[in-house]
């Protein structure tokens, strides 16, 4: 039992980036834009954060991690504008443009690593994020704060209602005077910022450098958490914690005698199997925003 309690900080460490990224995905999908680029946006964010931290930690000790996180969010938001432009302004297939960004992410980030650091990863930073009391990283509090903020804005503010309307029935929203395209732009922009931030949180707590394929599916897990959490903050938070726990277990299973009978792959595969099964089980009731994935065309009924 003690060892289980000892796992809580690492579960939170794993779950925080997933939750932050999933919140971004949720906002985007609730506005009607499927953001399959989350994986790539996390990569951009992780690269930006690692680079900023390496370059700044000597001159700005203590501050550099926070500046790095801000950089990660900014870069993520900036890159997401490409997805926004393609899928909102040009009515492109949202899955195709998202896939394009995912393909670009590894290329651009490692290319820049080669230019800045002259090898295929960033230099290692000496000090990532420092864990607070109980070994819990500040990223957990950031995630919690964002969760409450996102819930508040989506469900207690007029802008949240409008955003959700754009994802359910954009034509009706437009007839009520909402600028659907602008709303979707904002949503994708925020989801890009959150995706980038999530990548930054991941790189500053879980490793000491950015390298190719470092995100390794975390963005896709976040995407799954959005579906598994049925597109509501409460559900997405639960799903992110569950998936974070599964990832933590798959790493620490060798230290836990009672779980050692199971291969680590069992825990790695768990989040994906759970998601797939729940997608099938809940398939009858449609929880997805109705207009998610469909381009909005003015005047179409």
């Amino acid at each position, binding site marked *: 039992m003690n060892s289980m309690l000892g796992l809580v900080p690492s579960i939170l460490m794993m779950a925080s980036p997933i939750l932050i990224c999933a919140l971004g995905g949720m906002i985007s999908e609730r506005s009607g834009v*499927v953001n399959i680029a989350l994986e790539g946006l996390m990569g951009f964010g992780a690269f930006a954060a690692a680079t900023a931290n390496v370059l700044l930690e000597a001159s700005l000790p203590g501050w550099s991690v926070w500046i790095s996180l801000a950089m990660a969010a900014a870069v993520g938001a900036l890159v997401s504008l490409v997805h926004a432009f393609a899928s909102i302004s040009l009515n492109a297939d949202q899955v195709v443009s998202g896939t*394009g960004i995912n393909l670009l992410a590894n290329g651009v980030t490692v290319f820049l690593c080669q230019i800045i650091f002259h090898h295929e990863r960033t230099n290692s930073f000496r000090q990532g994020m420092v864990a607070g009391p109980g070994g819990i990283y500040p990223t957990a509090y950031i995630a919690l704060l964002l969760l409450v903020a996102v819930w508040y804005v989506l469900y207690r503010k007029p802008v949240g209602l409008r955003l959700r309307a754009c994802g359910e029935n954009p034509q009706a929203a437009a007839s009520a005077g909402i600028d659907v395209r602008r709303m979707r732009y904002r949503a994708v922009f925020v989801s890009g910022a959150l995706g980038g931030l999530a990548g930054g949180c991941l790189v500053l707590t879980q490793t000491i450098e950015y390298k190719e394929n470092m995100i390794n599916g975390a963005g896709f897990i976040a995407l799954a958490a959005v*579906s598994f959490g049925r597109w509501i903050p409460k559900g997405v938070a639960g799903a992110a914690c569950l998936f974070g726990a599964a990832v933590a277990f798959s790493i620490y299973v060798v230290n836990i005698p009672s779980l050692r009978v199971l291969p680590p*792959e069992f825990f790695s595969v768990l989040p994906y199997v759970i998601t797939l099964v729940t997608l099938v089980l809940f398939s009858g009731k449609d929880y997805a925003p109705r207009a998610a994935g469909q381009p909005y065309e003015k005047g179409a009924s």
Partner: protein
Amino acid sequence: MDIKRRALVDRLASSNAAMSVLVVLLGFLVGTILVLAVGRDPANMYRAIIQVVSGFDLARGTWNARYIGEWLVASVPLILCGLSMAFAARAGLFNIGAEGQYIVGLTVAQFASFYLPSVPVFHWAAAVVLGMLAAAGWGGVVGFLKAKYAVSEVVATIMMNYIALYVSRYATQLIPGTNTYKTPSFPATARLSNSWLESVTNGSRLNTGLFLALAAVLLFWFVMEKTRTGFALRATGFNKDAARCSGINVQRSLTLSMAISGAFAGLAGCIVALGSFGYGRVLAGLDGYGFNGIAVALVGNSTAIGTLLAGLLFGMLQSAQPLMQSRQIPKEVTYIISGLVVVFISLRSGIGLLLEARSKEQAKSAARKGELRDE
């Protein structure tokens, strides 16, 4: 003159093949600018590409056919994963799962090579068939879930990719004598190696998989364009409801298209396992052929011949990587080019949209002028 030029622009915009060429050229243009921007010589990038395609080393003036062989080796799985994506796309599905189906084919082929009797030809042929069947099942499940329960094939296939990866890791480690990253060597009869192809290409890894891939391209074309099944699939892709109303079994079409799509990706896995490697691998991550296959199919407009050409193009980029790196060109520029190509393709529908809007506006203003003249 102006009208003539506009007509040409419109015709180019509506021609898929021309747009693909344009998009690829744009990708290369941006890649070249990028290389220039970081102070490297783009000529080195093109020298590397020419060396891969022709075997000529322009800097040294030597010729080595092995480069051509390795280019084809890199292209074969890309072509097949492209066919996989294309086949599903024609039925209106977005198969992100080629990666997982590839892994399933690869894993089953690895198992078959250790547990099937060592009979020449039968051994590798049976391994390939089993790998393809397993991958077809892996893909077919997603098609079935989509058809029966309306589960999004995009999310489902991403999940299946990672399930395949971890199941493959676990299963491969069960093969006796396997360490954390590789199995013992395959028996010789399981290998796809082809001594003639090897000697023609000066000892490259080029293997029988090349012929299997070409056969797959032919099969794709035949099934898609010349059979009733292919017609049903395409009809489903164009308009599901219309297809259902005209008596096409849409559920069957969706399941079948994902299964055949999976078989193509599975074949890619078999060829990589039994052709390029002499041993089974405990995969540490995704190989990426499946994701690049998406780009291949998009550039190839989901046609057989287009996918073949696009696969050769992306194979060229991939196998030029080490040569670029040795000439101070960061090899990631090739990933950037393929990523850009996909982004530009997603913008393509928008470009068409803009052109349409412009011509509509012009028609409107022309009509207005006409009205004025009538008054």
